[in-house]
């Protein structure tokens, strides 16, 4: 596969070249994915915990739907946000279409179900263990939520990284609501798709390697921080 060899070459050139355009794209990619993960985690962690803690009629349905939304196609998420933000849509006035904000919104939709659904299982097994003790302390479920999320933080880190992976990998949603506008909303994945459609396979792969390296960097940071904290806990 000569193209893959060239891809490594291309990736190396891209990195060594320190091309300002590339740097801009990289920065925007990170900004959008991290923004989406932030939003997804801020809503998804409490939501997942709530579904683990409270029993109510229809919970099974909610859980099933949440799990199903892990399979929300990015294109569909993109379309929904597009229709919302389009001039003819209800939020058209805001003029958010084809901006990074729109991309963050669309990706949040993708990240949220993943974080919530996976959080639920971790909190559930911790809650199984803690429930009676916390009840005995007089801790309400609402006040137990932050404690459980905190005590499950090491496993939840992987959950959040899964959400980050989803955000940084997807192209369908950002393409539709961002438009892949050069210098404005072009991110790594849309650039990869563009180069692929130009038949620049090694450049596309090279960009893919750079993106993966970037994601790996974020993951490595999270891993090191997590392991250090874990070690302190014995």
């Amino acid at each position, binding site marked *: 596969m000569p193209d893959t060899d060239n891809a490594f070459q291309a990736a190396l050139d891209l990195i060594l070249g320190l091309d300002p355009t590339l740097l801009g794209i990289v920065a925007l990619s990170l900004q959008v994915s991290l923004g989406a993960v932030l939003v997804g985690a801020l809503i998804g962690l409490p939501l997942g915990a709530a579904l683990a803690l409270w029993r109510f009629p229809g919970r099974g349905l909610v859980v099933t739907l949440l799990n199903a939304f892990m399979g929300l196609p990015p294109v569909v998420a993109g379309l929904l946000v597009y229709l919302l933000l389009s001039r003819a849509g209800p939020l058209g006035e805001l003029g958010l279409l084809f901006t990074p904000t729109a991309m963050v919104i669309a990706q949040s939709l993708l990240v949220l179900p993943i974080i919530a659904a996976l959080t639920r299982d971790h909190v559930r097994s911790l809650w199984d263990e803690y429930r009676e003790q916390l009840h005995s302390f007089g801790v309400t479920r609402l006040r137990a939520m932050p404690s459980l999320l905190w005590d499950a933080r090491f496993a939840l880190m992987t959950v959040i990284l899964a959400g980050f992976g989803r955000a940084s990998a997807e192209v369908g949603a950002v393409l539709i609501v961002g438009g892949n*506008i050069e210098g*404005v909303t072009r991110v790594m994945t849309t650039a990869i798709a*563009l180069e692929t*459609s130009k038949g*620049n396979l090694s450049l596309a792969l090279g960009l893919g390697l750079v993106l993966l390296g970037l994601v790996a960097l974020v993951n490595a940071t999270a891993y090191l921080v997590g392991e250090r904290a874990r070690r302190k806990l014995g």
Partner: protein
Amino acid sequence: DERKEAHYIVLASTTSTENSGLFSAIIPPFTEATGISVRVVAVGTGQVFALSRRGDADALLVHDAAGEARLIDEGYASERAEIMYNDFVIVGPNQDPAGITTAKRATGAFARIAAAESPFVSRGDDSGTHRAERQLWQATGIAPQGEWYRVLGSGMGPTLNTAAAMGAYVFTDRATWAAFDNRQDLVLLFEGDEALFNQYASLLLLEERHPHLKHELAREWHRWLLSEEGQRAIADFEIAGQAVFTPNAQRGTDRSPGNQ
């Protein structure tokens, strides 16, 4: 600077135009001249029209005469001006199993492919290029079907990637082909028939429909494309030393006062 930031239009166009690299060549001189930047959203032809109808693009540049006419009929667009053309070509495996290089006309080439049942890949996405291909089949008098006729549902680039890997014939436009890298075994086999003419047009949207759009700026862009300067920029754009778009604005229809 700040003025520049707010001074932009969103241009909806097709992927084939974007993939060719045309915009990177002609937008900088336009911005230079007017201080207006252009944000290109390159999507499928149908999606271009959808964006325009919903008021999400300030200007559009497409190559689908029927779709353009409908947009005007429906009262979304106010003015259409032909800007340039390029041509479609037929690309296929080096060995040319159907022997289309010797065909006289495009319809003949298609007939030979159908007769040989050589693999042919169609974009199948209802884009301008796909419609042109369908029309050509109709002109040939053949309703292509069977194992050899593969209907995809992809943009031009992905379709070329697929054709390259399958070693199939494919109907494409010269610009995309010229800019395409992953040719593998594919070569240009047939070109030059008048029937392969591919006209691009710029449309202005109706102000009453979408008052919020930047009609003033869009008009400046539209006029610039028609202007001598714009036409020259298009003519000067080359891929690997080859001009791929031919400007053909009819100055007569350019009723633009004070542009010079």
